């Protein structure tokens, strides 16, 4: 369970990027952070992970304030998958082993090996364990970075646009996988995502942001033609197809 309380962030003396953000996500639940470019979504994610330090507010994981923990302990609670996939010449096995970095003191223990092997098996990545990371496709790399995050055995998984560089099939596969694993391992998943239809399909809760503030926060009902028009300044139609909400863009003028 992750609780974000009244977070405000700004660079220096510039205009605030985040103002008074509060929300929470339970274990096993997945939450989508939505909003226009520049709304502060990625900044929020980095504040939740202590890559950035907000001027105000707290982030609690199971009641413990992560701003008062040593860094390696934060990493044992929260795992983060960056939007940008690195160009790294490590074996896939070693990349996933990095998930054990927060636990490693002197060297790799037998337990670390076992966890890495279990994660590789769970995500069906064994066959590429000894391939170099930078020789794989974007979809495979994204999955490996998620596997690495799972090897951290976190309580919360933060994903910054996990589908941005993936083709259609991989978008579905990765999101399905994340949701299944989140539910199975009781991990709270928080992701920044641009595709509203994918978000509707794979997330339980929604945080709609506009200009650094929360516009609305709740379940599927908050995604309406009106709220999208307000946040993105575009006109859309929302229909129901096979019992699922579907968003269709109409025109960029309101």
């Amino acid at each position: 369970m992750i609780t974000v309380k009244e977070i405000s962030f700004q660079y220096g003396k510039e205009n605030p990027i985040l103002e008074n953000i509060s929300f929470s996500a339970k274990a096993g639940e997945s939450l989508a952070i939505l909003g226009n470019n520049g709304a502060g979504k990625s900044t929020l994610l980095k504040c939740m992970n202590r890559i950035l330090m907000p001027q105000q507010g707290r982030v609690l994981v199971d009641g413990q304030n992560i701003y008062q923990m040593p860094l390696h302990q934060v990493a044992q609670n929260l795992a983060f998958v960056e939007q940008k996939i690195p160009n790294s010449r490590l074996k896939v096995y070693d990349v996933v082993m990095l998930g054990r970095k927060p636990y490693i003191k002197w060297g790799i223990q037998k337990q670390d090996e076992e966890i890495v092997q279990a994660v590789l098996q769970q995500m069906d990545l064994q066959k590429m364990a000894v391939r170099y990371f930078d020789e794989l496709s974007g979809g495979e790399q994204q999955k490996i970075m998620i596997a690495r995050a799972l090897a951290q055995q976190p309580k919360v998984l933060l994903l910054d646009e996990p589908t941005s560089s993936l083709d259609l099939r991989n978008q579905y596969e990765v999101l399905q996988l994340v949701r299944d694993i989140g539910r199975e391992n009781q991990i709270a998943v928080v992701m920044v995502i641009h595709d509203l239809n994918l978000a509707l399909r794979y997330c339980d809760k929604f945080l709609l942001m506009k200009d650094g503030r929360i516009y609305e926060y709740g379940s599927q009902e908050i995604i309406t033609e009106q709220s999208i028009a307000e946040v993105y300044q575009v006109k859309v139609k929302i229909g129901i197809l096979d019992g699922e909400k579907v968003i269709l863009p109409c025109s960029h003028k309101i």
Partner: protein
Amino acid sequence: MTKKIADYEKYKKKSLMILIVLVLAWLGIGLFSLAAGSYNVPLTEILKAIVGKSEQANVNTIIYNLRLPRILTAMIGGTGLGIVGCVLQAILRNPLASSSTLGISQGASFGAAFAIIVLGAGVQGSAVSAVKFVNPFLISFYAFLGSIAVSFLILALSRFKKISAEGMILAGVALSAMFQGATTLLQFFANEVQLASVVFWAFGDLGRTGWREVIIMAVTVFVSGCYFMFSRWDYNALEVGEQTAISLGVNVNRVRIMNMLVCSITAAVIVSYLGIINFIGLVAPHIVRRFIGNNHVFLLPTSALMGGILLLVGDYIARMAITPVILPIGAITSFMGAPLFLYLLFKSGQRK
């Protein structure tokens, strides 16, 4: 045991084999180099002489006082330059990082030039083949100060202005140019003898070190090597990006500053005794990277050994090419290193 574990074990075994082969090569080439020289000594005598037990007194003297310090200097100095290059490339996430591209060598040059020209630690007698510095300790000391000054400037800039890894490299390039300019200015006001000794110092020479210097270098390289090996997982974490490294619990800023500090001290000690030796720190990690990738558990020790091997080979060529003249080692390593670097560059295509 499943199949994938077997595959990974195989990879680990292969990397370990490469490591063992390099250790043997490092020792073997060292021993071979001991035997090579204008005075022919059989291998059995050399082994006896190393422990000071040869029956021939002059063999003891040649091996123990002349050749052994020189060979150990090459082995240890090259090892240090190799591992420092590997660490700098890891923490700055830049394949071009090494002690010579970051201005550490240029700082040392300036320090040495300052000691020779301003403080008069210059040369006695002008025959280039028999140069003797009046006060070699002073030159080394100022060379050390010069290279430490450059690294502190870079660190101070990154500390107070929060510059990125790329910024640090660029700052190093700028400072290199500045110190090179300062050295040139000093040379402009120097007399002929001073000028000759500045140039001669910068050539690089493995013969300036006695046992005391060898021990100082060995201790420095050993201690920093332990520190680097202890940080191996930090370097691996940086391989997958700076932000991901932070999210894995690595304090990236602290790692960068501490490692820069340890690297610059190590490189400064080596460079101040040996003179300017280019390309070893740059090329050694790139050679082994081709075979074992970027897993620093193996990359660190193999880069170190490869650095030692390259300097040993360079020294062998420098001594044997036109005996009895010893060619300047700095020129040899650049001459060898640059084509090697180009070869790696074109062979590996777009990859770093």
